[in-house]
């Protein structure tokens, strides 16, 4: 049972590293996926292109920080923020597609640019929620051994 926090940290780190490497290997696919969200105004292509480079690197660095403990809380905070922003963007795009096509949320699938190809969005949102809990646990749970109190 005492190994569970360590397993959660390593599990979250492994997932983040795999996502990061998949995106870094095919930046064009990631750019196309991100473009679908229309998060940036059309003139802001520099920021869009930089995000394509920065997001996977942030994921890989966050994985390293969570696994080693270096800047653990900061890395967890940034990763949690990214997860919230992207999950919200996925939800907004899902609602747009549902309004256009009349598809049910549970049946909806597309490439969300998350680094895992086309996925069922309902499952992806559940997975992201679990990952968010894992990141918060890995980043903010006190891992240091507690000294016995003298009182």
């Amino acid at each position: 049972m005492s190994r569970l926090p360590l397993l959660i940290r390593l599990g979250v780190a492994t997932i983040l590293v795999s996502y990061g490497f998949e995106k870094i290997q095919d930046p064009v696919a990631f750019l196309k996926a991100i473009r679908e969200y229309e998060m940036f105004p059309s003139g802001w292509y520099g920021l869009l292109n930089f995000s394509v480079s920065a997001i996977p690197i942030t994921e890989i660095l966050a994985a390293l920080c969570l696994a080693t403990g270096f800047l653990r809380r900061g890395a967890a905070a940034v990763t949690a923020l990214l997860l919230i922003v992207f999950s919200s963007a996925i939800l907004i795009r899902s609602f747009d597609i549902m309004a256009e096509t009349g598809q049910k949320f549970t049946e909806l699938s597309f490439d969300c640019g998350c680094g895992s190809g086309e996925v069922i969005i309902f499952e992806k949102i559940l997975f992201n929620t679990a990952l968010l809990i894992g990141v918060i646990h890995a980043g903010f749970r006190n891992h240091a051994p507690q000294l016995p109190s003298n009182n």
Partner: protein
Amino acid sequence: MRDTLKQALCFVAISCGVSLLNVLLNPSALAINTNYAPVASDVVLEHEFNNIDHQELSSYIDILMDEQPYVIVLDARSKEDYELAHIPGAHLADHYHQQQYVEPLAEAIRMVPIVVVYCKGGDCEDSIFLARDLVYKHAVPLESLYIYEGGMNDWNTNGSPVQSGGVR
């Protein structure tokens, strides 16, 4: 809380620094100062170029390898897709790595009366983006540019011959 914020800022600074190094040193990374999609994706499929269909493109196949070509065919897909299978005689012209693949061809492209650009087909926009860059960045005359909208999917569906490997 304040310590977490400090750590987060430090982490973001390191991430940005490493990302900039990636952009500068990694040849497969995308350039920051290039607009890869000059038009919103919902209007891009309505383009200003001539269209060419499978039948007409097939009729040019025999002359694509000529020393002084009358037609140049450009494959706007990635190097990996091109190497797997492309229209025989087509040149690799990866839209996302134009400095590497398109600029060396630019002069030859300007000289020929017919330039055909294709990508995957379907909702693929890269052939249109490349054609726009050819006009606005490389001074290729608009009237010489043709889009093969069916792309590689249509070429394969029609059972036409393909070539694999080697960048031309």
